[in-house]
């Protein structure tokens, strides 16, 4: 805890004792909370046989499995399309032609400002698109726009001299981009890209609201079944760890990449690495609409 050292002294024996007391009190509080939850769970019969019975059936297991696969499918498609969308519009925003730049800026700003769910519903209800493609399209437009800003900020963060040196060598703009700017920006951007993919993965669960048959949708089907005495809590106990586990794995990979990037940056002196999880600072532009990567 490097941050904490500024806030309190290294505790002496008396303070350590006091902290132990606080710790004990906090633990008692947390334990009390947990045991209350446990008591409520048992009291409302959440561990009864009927409520857990459905998970033994092959059909139910297959339903959950298909839901999980559908979630991963939507995520894979959305991630691929969003990355392509992001590259395209980041290039558009960095273009030397004003109409292209204007158009790209408009598209990116609009889709970042719209609630994702409104876009998904619009595509699903008004344009009558299949649930999977409505979900993928919505995720692509939103995450693609955020990624476009990540890419743009990454390219702009490469020290100016790099670009100038490349131009001075007689490279054309595409060459400068491909051989000088993108490879350097890539390393700095990777953690932010992965963090945004975590957001996309979390948002695939919005598909549940437009009847796309993904993981949460499968869970709801089981949870609302009267034959099994409405096993809401057991379904949550099965589904939530899977979702949280998937997102945690991705988050940790972002963290690992960030740490590796920071190490090599210190050795070679490249551009600063954006910390994962912390929203990127607004790109340098006046009247900028802030990004909310949540």
């Amino acid at each position, binding site marked *: *805890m490097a*941050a*904490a*050292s*500024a*806030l*309190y*002294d290294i*505790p002496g024996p008396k303070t350590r004792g006091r*902290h132990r007391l*606080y*710790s*004990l009190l*906090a*633990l008692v509080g*947390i334990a009390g909370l947990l045991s209350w939850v446990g008591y*409520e769970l048992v*009291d*409302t019969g959440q561990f009864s046989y009927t409520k857990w019975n459905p998970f033994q059936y092959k059909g139910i297991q297959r339903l959950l499995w298909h839901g999980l696969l559908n979630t991963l499918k939507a995520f894979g498609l959305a991630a691929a399309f969003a990355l392509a969308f992001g590259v395209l519009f980041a290039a558009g925003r960095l273009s030397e032609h004003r109409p292209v730049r204007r158009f790209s800026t408009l598209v990116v700003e609009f889709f970042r*400002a*719209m*609630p994702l*769910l*409104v876009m998904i*519903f*619009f595509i699903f*209800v*008004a344009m009558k698109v299949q649930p999977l493609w409505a979900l993928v399209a919505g995720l692509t437009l939103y995450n693609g726009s955020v990624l476009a800003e990540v890419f743009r900020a990454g390219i702009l963060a490469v020290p100016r001299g790099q670009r100038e040196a490349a131009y001075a060598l007689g490279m054309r703009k595409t060459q400068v981009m491909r051989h000088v700017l993108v490879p350097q920006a890539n390393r700095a951007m990777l953690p932010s890209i992965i963090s945004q993919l975590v957001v996309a993965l*979390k*948002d*695939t*669960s*919005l598909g*549940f*609201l437009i009847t796309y048959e993904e993981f*949460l949708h499968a*869970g*709801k089907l089981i*949870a609302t079944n009267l034959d099994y005495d*409405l096993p*809401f*809590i057991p379904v*949550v106990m099965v*589904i*939530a760890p899977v*979702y*949280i586990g998937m*997102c*945690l794995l991705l*988050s940790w990979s972002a963290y690992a990449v960030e740490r590796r990037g920071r190490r090599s940056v210190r050795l070679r002196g490249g551009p600063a690495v954006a910390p994962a*999880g*912390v*929203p990127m*600072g607004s790109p340098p532009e006046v009247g900028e*609409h*802030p*990004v*909310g*990567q*949540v």
Partner: protein
Amino acid sequence: MNVLTANWSIYWHGFIGTLELTAVSAALALALGVLIAGFRVSPVPALRGFGLVWVTLLRNTPLTLLFFIVVLGLPRFGISFPFFTFAVLALGCYTSAFICEALRSGINTVPVGQGEAARSLGMTFGQTLSLVVLPQAARAVVAPVGSLLIALAKNSAIAGSFSVVELLGTYRPINELGYSIIWTFVWIAVGYLVITLAISVVFNLLERRLAVSR
């Protein structure tokens, strides 16, 4: 165009609903966020652990799943509130994890000397944090907190698909009345833009007023 004028009361109701939901959830998220950030930098290991678990769990849970748990799950527990309270709970707790992390990164920007000076005056941890470090940290994180609140306003749309107290939820009754679905959505979009732009403007002003130059 006449979609808006003909259904003004439905739209207005939804717009106010979104505003209320955003404002109350934001208050909860800010209060919880400050508290958990305090936990995470405190000298008491148990509280630090609690803060870490809170942030890690909530940041990696899809908001839809959280709504599912709170709105559909809690009543099975024998806990029943009006829908609005449930929505505030889900949105507030979810956003608090992000607010906590923003604040914590703000605490890291406060020079070490500030804390040391406070301690040398004999201030306790609570005094150092609440009187010296947090006020400066808060000023440093105005911009990120602003984008988090914009995200909160946009996320409140999820509440609309669980119940009709909110702007996105208005499309259903209007759709049933047989109005143009495209224009219905255009006006919903305009409603959200008004809210997010308003937050953005307020926070830009705040940022200019409160910026700390170091």
